[in-house]
């Protein structure tokens, strides 16, 4: 990792190696004794900070490159408590202004329990995802920041890293597919379908409104009435056919 940070001035960045002999296996073999207290060597953030050479007591930023080995070694509860205490009180005369942790979601045991708790503890959560349709092949980052007043800022950006290890990011704008005329009134006839003139001119509209349909009678009386017009072949008889009945 040291080779990656080319432009940083070395006075300000202290590297703590919690990677090389984190369980004391190499040391203990050379001394040829296996003591149980070797397990606690460098295993917690607080103990690492306590043994670190502190040159200034200014506010410092702690960056942890992966939280998973820590959670495996000391357990999630203890890790959570230590992170919380780092933010709340000072250790060894050192006041911590910010803690930045990297979590690989798929390597965490019990991730459905651990991850929401860590997100709750954090004021800013940056979730890195793979590229989407709108991100032009670049990976995306969704950022949720909780301000002190209670307001929450949400933003999605896509980023890329150039040859000089500089991060370039832009806000992701969703690309909506443009369809012409989608919002138009759907009752209108689609006029581009044929070369025939389907629309009506002004005079034609007036003529249509004045038209009286031949078989339509406006029924102003109440109740129903049957309108019957006999044809030429019909035999219309006014008499009542049931007259000769003796009831």
């Amino acid at each position: 990792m040291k080779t990656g940070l080319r432009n940083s001035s070395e006075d300000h960045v202290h590297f703590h190696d919690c990677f090389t002999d984190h369980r004391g296996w190499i040391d203990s073999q050379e001394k040829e004794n296996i003591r149980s207290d070797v397990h606690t060597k460098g295993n917690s953030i607080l103990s690492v900070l306590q043994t670190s050479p502190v040159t200034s007591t200014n506010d410092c930023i702690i960056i942890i490159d992966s939280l998973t080995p820590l959670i495996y070694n000391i357990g999630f509860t203890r890790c959570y408590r230590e992170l919380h205490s780092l933010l709340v009180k000072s250790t060894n005369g050192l006041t911590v202004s910010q803690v930045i942790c990297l979590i690989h979601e798929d390597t965490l045991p019990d991730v459905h329990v651990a991850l929401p708790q860590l997100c709750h503890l954090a004021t800013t959560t940056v979730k890195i995802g793979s590229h989407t349709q709108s991100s032009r092949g670049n990976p995306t980052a969704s950022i949720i920041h909780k301000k002190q007043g209670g307001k929450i800022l949400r933003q999605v950006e896509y980023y890329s890293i150039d040859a000089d290890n500089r991060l370039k990011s832009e806000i992701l704008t969703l690309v909506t597919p443009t369809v012409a005329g989608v919002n138009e009134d759907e009752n209108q006839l689609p006029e581009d379908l044929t070369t025939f003139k389907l629309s009506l001119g002004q005079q034609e509209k007036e003529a249509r409104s004045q038209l009286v349909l031949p078989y339509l009678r406006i029924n102003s009386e109440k109740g129903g009435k049957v309108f019957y017009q006999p044809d030429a072949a019909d035999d219309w008889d006014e008499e009542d056919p049931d007259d000769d009945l003796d009831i």
Partner: protein
Amino acid sequence: MATSVCSALGIDQENSVGKLIAVEEHHSSNGNFVLNCLIAEQVHKEGSVCLVALHNSFGHYHNVGTKLGYNLHQLQEKGCVESIEVLKLLNESLNAEHENRVGNVLFGDEENTMRNLFHLIKGKTEKLLQKRKLVSLVIDDLSNLLSLGISVKEVLSFLQYCRTLLESQPGLSLVVLTHIAEGDDEQQLLNAGLCHVADVIVTVCGLKTGQSSDVSGSMKVTHRRLDQPMIAHEWNKQNLYHFKLLDRQVKVFAPGTATCLI
């Protein structure tokens, strides 16, 4: 013979010293051929191999090796190949535990088991590095340690210690195989932990639609070039191949270009 696999993996062009190659073997396939081809490549480059055999015996690797063109027994006699046969260690440890004598390497406290195994490996790699400049540590397969009852935490610690060897012993490269079965959470966690730190990830799985006589399975190679800037199209570049296991060689080809189909 093994060259087609090695060129697919890209290790004949890139230097694999100081790098970790992770082979992810999904349930219905066998990723052993990748290890055998990598051993063949290492032998060809006149390097040494330290083989930690958890899944098969040393004789098995020798037999496969003769078909690919190298003789592991001879190389072991010459001192170019060291092996740690965990299956034999299991036998010795079990006997030692029953008879209550010293020699129980594997059946003690979990951490001690891993620590002992690590120290064995460290000793062997140091011995090999005295003779040759290039040493390849091949572990087959890491998920078998979970079958011994060891927790994921200890296996990941063991893996981390093996990675520290990459820095403390220049000239060493690491190849680790893990097996994944769906539904086995521990294997998934172990595999995720391994893939996050690997430089090259080879995923070997069977065909989704079933078995075929022309294609044995598919192989996806992902190069995580962590030491180079992450340009959009180069980042996490993945290459998908199909392979066919034959008697004396492995044929690797692009999907859809099997010899019977062309």
